[in-house]
């Protein structure tokens, strides 16, 4: 074998190896980008999965049983049966604990139950107008250790000594009761068999002597009602009682003066015709009232501002759900979120969510009317007691009920709002809070930041690039270009820090001076240019840009100083001495210290280097012979720059802007530190915003793995990913076309 053939083989091998390494590297990059994309998609997808329900075997109940609740482990349902016994019904293969007698009943028949959300007490109305309140608690213990911890777990119910109140002085059977209490005392109301509405308030005050002073206030509110009462509920903060009537009214009583309920007003559920209200319940947080009707119609109501009302608020029907085919007979709110379940006279059960306004599930019971409906404490199960005396059961898998495209991107009418709005407010610390997951303010914030940053960066970067590539002396250019490129290496956290902690307060103090500089600096540059042109050409010499720049520097510094000096007097003369105040009074817009201008400048600063570098490259890559061709025709350098160089380099400049855009869209640290991260939607120059990227950084600590917020943050990431991917692809395609074009020049 000759040396030549060995070396040829060796070359072939290295060539092959190199080709495979390069190919593998390229593939790995594509695969990892795709992998990230798929991973994000997998995290986001469950948000949009439909709710699912699996039905569990029905369980029979004793006669006259009234369903009251389920324990935390979802193993025991409990309720009241005549004559005054708490019964436990096992939902799994376990023995039922013995029923407990409630002493206060003494042979009376229970007629209705009420259970405030997330409380251990159950309230039972009796046939002689009493309210019996007892707490039912479950103690979980573990027996001897076995393989299966579930079977060794013991659940022991503990029932407290009940308190008994004579709610109806006339001792008529109670049809419906409601009770709430807080540190001040207790409020209860009931509808009696003869269609009266009775009210009782028991206040307890500690006396100085250490005793308790008890006062009772009673009222018969029947006279205030436009028609016979059919359903009622009281809110947990002891402020409102809502009563439904047989003629389709929802009547609102203000009970903030606990001893004297006051009717605020009423509304009819239907504009025309009347259909009795058959069921009512407050959702968690006690703001949203769900109203079910005889016709099967279902609506959610809450109070909004109303100047005409005596309390300043009025109850409004906010949204409608698809009607049940039969009368709504039971409503069970979820203890976890703004979801609720409804049952109807034909035995159907549905699951809804108030915020999204969506009916998530429609389930068939055993065909007989639903009399009572209970959601398990973790909202993962549903129990419906039917007239037939059986409980139908479902397990519910519904982790993200509030998420729809509408709640993510559209306007939603949230509790306490006067109108539908775009809002982002991920949590208030409690389950009572209605989370607001609109991405629209964040997308808006991202666009606002991007627009302001590019508005500042693009003109500066491109004009600088034109000047550097076409007019600057090569010596200077060789100095300036690397310097600006080094600027790109400045960590954005440093820029954000400077912007938030130095620039923002400085701008707040010297705003008029900053505004003045917008005019002053270009004007002084033009003046300096005019003066330069007036100089005799002999003095100007042939410096070709070096001397001019050196002479311009002191002019710019002086102009800046002059603007600062004039800022104060200007503020006194034009803005009454306080720009922020003036701005607020003139435009009605607020001035935040960390605002869009600050971010625009800081983020502009961050992307100027990259836009400058790419544009400058594009401009100086325009072949010299095109420039010479234009100059040889008698064009000035400016004409050449504008008419030949700029159009030829425009795809490159476009792609520079696109890459800058991609950078700004994803920029996090600067917006995080230099805006207030307030998710508001205003183009106002002087207030903050929150971007998708900053949102992820802000919310991460609040987002438990797998939760709704966690997945929405991933959705935000997906949007960012898609945006930068599209923009960069567009930029790359333009660049490729440009390369093809240059190849022909």
């Amino acid at each position: 074998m000759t040396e030549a053939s060995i070396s040829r083989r060796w070359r072939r091998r290295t060539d092959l190896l190199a080709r495979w390494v390069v190919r593998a590297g390229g593939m790995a990059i594509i695969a990892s980008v795709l992998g990230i994309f798929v991973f994000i998609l997998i995290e986001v997808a469950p948000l949009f999965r439909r709710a699912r329900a699996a039905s569990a075997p029905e369980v029979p109940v004793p006669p006259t049983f009234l369903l009251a609740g389920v324990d935390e482990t979802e193993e025991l349902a409990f309720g009241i049966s005549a004559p005054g016994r708490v019964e436990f019904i096992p939902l799994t293969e376990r023995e039922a604990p013995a029923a407990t007698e409630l002493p206060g009943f003494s042979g009376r028949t229970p007629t209705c139950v009420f259970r405030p959300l997330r409380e251990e007490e159950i309230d039972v109305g009796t046939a002689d107008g009493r309210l019996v309140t007892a707490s039912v608690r479950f103690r979980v213990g573990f027996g001897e250790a076995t393989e299966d911890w579930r079977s060794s777990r013991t659940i022991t119910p503990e029932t407290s000594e009940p308190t008994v109140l004579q709610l109806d002085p006339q001792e008529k059977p109670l049809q419906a009761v409601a009770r709430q209490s807080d540190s001040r005392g207790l409020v209860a109301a009931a509808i009696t068999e003869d269609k009266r509405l009775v009210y009782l308030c028991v206040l307890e005050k500690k006396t100085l002597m250490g005793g308790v002073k008890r006062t009772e206030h009673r009222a018969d509110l029947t006279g205030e009602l436009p028609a016979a009462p059919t359903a009622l509920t009281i809110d947990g903060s002891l402020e409102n009682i809502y009563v439904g009537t047989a003629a389709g009214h929802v009547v609102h009583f203000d009970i903030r003066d606990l001893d004297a309920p006051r009717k605020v007003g009423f509304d009819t559920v239907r504009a025309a015709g009347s259909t009795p209200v058959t069921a009512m319940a407050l959702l968690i947080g006690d703001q949203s009232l769900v109203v079910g009707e005889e016709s099967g119609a279902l609506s959610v109501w809450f109070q909004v501002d109303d100047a005409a009302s005596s309390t300043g608020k009025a109850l409004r029907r906010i949204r409608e759900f698809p009607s049940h085919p039969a009368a709504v007979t039971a409503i069970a709110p979820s203890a976890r979120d703004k979801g609720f379940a409804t049952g109807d006279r034909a035995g159907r059960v549905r699951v809804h969510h108030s915020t999204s306004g969506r009916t998530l599930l429609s389930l068939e019971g055993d065909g007989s009317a639903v009399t009572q409906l209970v959601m398990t404490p973790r909202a993962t199960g549903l129990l419906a007691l039917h007239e037939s005396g059986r409980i139908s059961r479902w397990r519910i898998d519904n982790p993200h009920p509030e998420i729809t495209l509408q709640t993510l991107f559209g306007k939603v009418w949230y509790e306490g709002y006067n109108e539908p709005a775009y809002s982002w407010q991920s949590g208030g610390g409690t389950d009572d809070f209605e989370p607001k997951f609109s991405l629209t303010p964040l997308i808006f914030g991202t666009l606002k930041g991007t627009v302001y940053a590019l508005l500042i960066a693009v003109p500066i970067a491109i004009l600088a690039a034109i000047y550097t590539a076409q007019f600057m002396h090569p010596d200077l250019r060789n100095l300036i270009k690397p310097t600006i490129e080094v600027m790109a290496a400045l960590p954005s956290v440093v820029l954000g820090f400077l912007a938030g902690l130095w620039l923002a307060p400085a701008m707040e103090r010297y705003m008029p001076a900053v505004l003045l500089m917008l005019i002053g600096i270009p004007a002084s540059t033009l003046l300096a240019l005019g003066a330069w042109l007036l100089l005799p050409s002999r003095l100007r010499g042939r410096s070709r840009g070096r001397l001019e720049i050196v002479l311009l520097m002191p002019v710019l510094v002086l102009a800046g100083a002059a603007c600062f000096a004039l800022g104060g007097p200007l503020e006194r003369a034009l803005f009454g001495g306080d720009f922020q105040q003036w701005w607020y009074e003139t435009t009605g817009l607020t001035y935040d210290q960390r605002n869009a201008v600050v971010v625009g400048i800081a983020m502009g600063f961050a992307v100027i280097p990259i836009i400058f570098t790419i544009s400058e490259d594009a401009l100086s890559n325009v072949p010299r012979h095109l420039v010479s061709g234009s100059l040889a025709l008698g064009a000035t350098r400016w004409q050449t720059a504008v008419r030949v160089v700029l159009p030829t380099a425009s795809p490159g400049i476009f792609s520079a802007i696109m890459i800058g855009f991609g950078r700004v869209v994803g920029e996090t640290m600067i917006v995080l530190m230099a805006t207030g991260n307030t998710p508001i939607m205003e183009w106002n120059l002087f207030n903050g915003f929150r971007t998708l990227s900053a949102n992820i950084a802000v919310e991460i600590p609040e987002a438990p793995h797998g939760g709704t917020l966690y997945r929405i943050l991933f959705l935000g990431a997906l949007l960012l990913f898609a945006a930068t991917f599209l923009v960069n692809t567009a930029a790359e395609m333009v660049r490729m076309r440009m390369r093809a074009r240059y190849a022909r020049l």
Partner: protein
Amino acid sequence: MVKIKMPKVQEALAVTPALPPERAAPSPAEGVPPSDFVIRIRNLNLWYDGTPALHDVTLDLPRCKVTAFIGPSGCGKSTLLRCLNRLNDLIDGVRMSGSIHVSGQDIYDPFVDVTELRKRVGMVFQKSNPFPKSIFENVAYGPRIHGVRNRSDLDAIVQKSLERAGLWNEAKDRLNRNALELSGGQQQRLCIARALAVDPEILLMDEPCSALDPVSTAHIEELFFDLKTRYTIVLVTHNMQQAARASDRTAFLLQGRLVEVGSTRDMFTNPRKSETQDYITGRFG
């Protein structure tokens, strides 16, 4: 049609009696009155960053004639040409002395408007350099720069210029197509049309055919005969045959010095200097 290949330069030229030797410049050759020298170069020296590129060049170029600059590569032909429209201004580190007058005006006078000068002294480059625009926009570029806005005026100028550059028939149906779609020879003629569109007096051509195939070359050489009725043409070429065929007068440069200038016929049949003789006969260069 001009012959494309010529076996011998001397053969191609009509043999004429040698004229008596004269001083190179000023030389009222072929009965050209001195007032008809549109370009007068006097004692021109030029340095690139201190390296001399032209040395004491004194030369006159007659109106409405084709003058060829010949000489070996690197002898300063392009440099001399660029002095005539001050395109050397763009190059850093150029220093020069001496004077150049175009139509009686000192073009290096500080008060000269360079753009006006370049409008009068058009230039066609070695490598065709159409702008990446349409054919129409390429030709209309110069007039637009100099303030012609009216569309019908522009149309007329574009048509006339393309006609003079011999491109009208090929281009008239595709005026709005990108100029880069033209062939190399067509692109060079487009550049000539573009230069003609600003109505110059003088046309500088720096090896305009060196990148072209023989047919395109012949096409452009043919143009010279038409163009020199209106324009003073300065043609740089290192192609002896081309200089012999297309020019009226020839200047021979060597290492930045003007060796000899005279009527093309004299130069090729009866060079006065031995360097010229050596170069023409292909002994070096």
